């Protein structure tokens, strides 16, 4: 990163980290917790979907696997709050392991077919969890939240999610600029040519898929603990999968900044609309936003502004 953007990034993180000291209302902490979570989800999706161009429409499955793994560990071993938070890391590893197993056959399929197979995968995981009694079946799992005043406990979860977001963004940034990231770009641009140039495309794709599943798994674990109640419909919904893709593509897939911009805009707009407008009207405006952005910025917001900036410089 060049010096100025790096300083800006560090400053932003510092301000966000100090924010709970102002003793804001719990609502704002909750809202930012969700926002950070979506940044994590869409940025890690971007590794496989944006960099490699394999649009996974089943990322909610990894999110949900992480959530249920943490919830199960916490209830089965009655873990302390700290251990519960830490247990989201093995939960993320489980999600990554599932990605490794599923990715092996699925990543051989290309284009829209890959998208459809990932949709099916998310459904299968969802239905399987609903049919397993030990995971609460269709009723879900209850967890006990930490025994602290609400402001403190929410602030702790806020900081943890912020940390996860920083780690995710740093990883994705470094990956994007590494040899690995350039390999993925080659896969997206032309997989056949990449293969002929001795780029190990199959290996790169699997690695990208595993990385892009790990962080959502951890986020899912934290989310489950935050809600202290987890139900399959809350984490496996196809709408979450679609939202992750839309946030990344809306901002601009394949760029580091795109998913961040997309997640922030869509979360803020969604929250604002649901506060100020009737539910259906809010959804209609939300839908219209997708249409307007795709017509005027078909390659995402970031690409649009880059083009605009180049045009300014030339003029």
């Amino acid at each position, binding site marked *: 990163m060049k010096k100025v953007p790096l300083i800006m990034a560090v400053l932003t993180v510092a301000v966000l980290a100090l924010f709970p000291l102002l003793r804001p209302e719990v609502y704002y902490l909750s809202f930012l917790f969700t926002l950070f979570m979506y940044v994590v989800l869409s940025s890690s999706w971007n590794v496989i979907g944006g960099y490699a161009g394999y649009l996974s429409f089943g990322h909610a499955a990894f999110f949900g696997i992480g959530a249920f793994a943490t919830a199960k560990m916490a209830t089965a071993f009655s873990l302390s709050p700290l251990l519960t938070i830490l247990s989201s890391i093995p939960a993320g590893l489980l999600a990554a392991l599932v990605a490794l197993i599923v990715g092996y*056959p699925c990543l051989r399929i290309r284009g829209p077919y890959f998208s459809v197979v990932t949709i*099916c*995968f998310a*459904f299968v995981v969802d239905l399987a969890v609903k049919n397993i009694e030990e995971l609460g079946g269709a009723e879900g799992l209850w967890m006990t939240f930490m025994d602290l005043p609400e402001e403190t406990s929410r602030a702790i979860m806020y900081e943890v999610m912020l940390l996860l977001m920083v780690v995710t963004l740093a990883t994705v940034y470094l990956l994007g600029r590494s040899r690995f990231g350039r390999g993925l770009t080659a896969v997206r641009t032309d997989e056949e040519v990449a293969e002929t140039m001795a780029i190990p495309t199959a290996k790169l794709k699997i690695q990208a898929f595993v990385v892009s599943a790990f962080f959502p798994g951890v986020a899912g674990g934290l989310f489950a603990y935050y809600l202290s109640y987890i139900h399959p419909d809350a984490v496996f919904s196809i709408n979450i999968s679609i939202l992750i893709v839309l946030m990344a*593509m809306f901002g601009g897939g394949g760029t580091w900044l795109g998913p961040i911009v997309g997640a922030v805009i869509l979360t803020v707009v969604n929250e604002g609309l649901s506060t100020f407008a009737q539910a259906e009207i809010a959804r*209609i405006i939300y*839908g219209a936003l997708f*249409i307007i952005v*795709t*017509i005027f910025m078909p390659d995402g917001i970031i690409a649009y502004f880059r083009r605009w900036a180049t045009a300014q410089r030339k003029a």
Partner: protein
Amino acid sequence: MDPVLVIQSLISGVMMGMVYALLGVGFSLTWGVMHVIHISHAVFGLLGAYFAYTLLTLYGVDPVVSAMVSTPLLFIVACAVYQVLIRPLTKAREMVVASMILTFGLAIILENLLVLVWKADPRLLTPSYASESWIIGPFYLQYPHLIGFALSLVGISSLYVFLKKTTTGMAVRAAWQNQEAARLYGVNLFRISMITFALAVSTAGAGGISLALLYSFEPHSHNLWLIYLFLVVIVGGVGNVIGTALAGLIIGVITGLSMAFLPYQWVNLITFGLLMVFLIFRPHGLFGEVG
């Protein structure tokens, strides 16, 4: 296994499958010919269903008549949608992605308009013959199901004849096989795309009416319908009309049989599990992309 039950579930599976095929064939065409994955396809099916529902409850119009009226109406609406929303997308670097995002937005808008106008309650198309059946020996064929089946069969056959026998239909197939070559032979791709899109949307309307004769529907039903569309289209091969029809029948029979013999919650698990395995081993459909 009771043979009567087996045959009865086969029959209902075939009927259901035919209807999914009519709903899916347009989805398959827009995907194959225009490289547009039309997420709001099933919502247009719902639009047809609500249109028939309103005409039936207010004026007692038969759903078959409504299907005949809705088809040209939706054709015109779809031409406008194409010109205003879909055509600008041809500039996008990744047309498939852009089209998915845009039509996802359109689906949200239409779904919520449906909620505003008709409320979120489930509706049922109940024509005067709703509870009557054609009884052959031990088997029951409910009239609404029969009508839905017949409507779908007619819809798919006419689309097939159109694609095979008319010049415009041949141009559509040419664009599906190779856009560049089609353009070189003087096919106006924008016109062909508009016609494809409009045909797809109007068959979706008729498919929605047929499906509404079999099941109840509500503004959110299109999400589940869409999943079945993906299923039918993938198994049948993208852009392949006959393939889509056969895939519809196969999937209908599988669901029909598993509904009869398995606990309900396992039916979908098996359907999607099968589809996953299928995609991994035969990603281009049972019948390939030519046909």
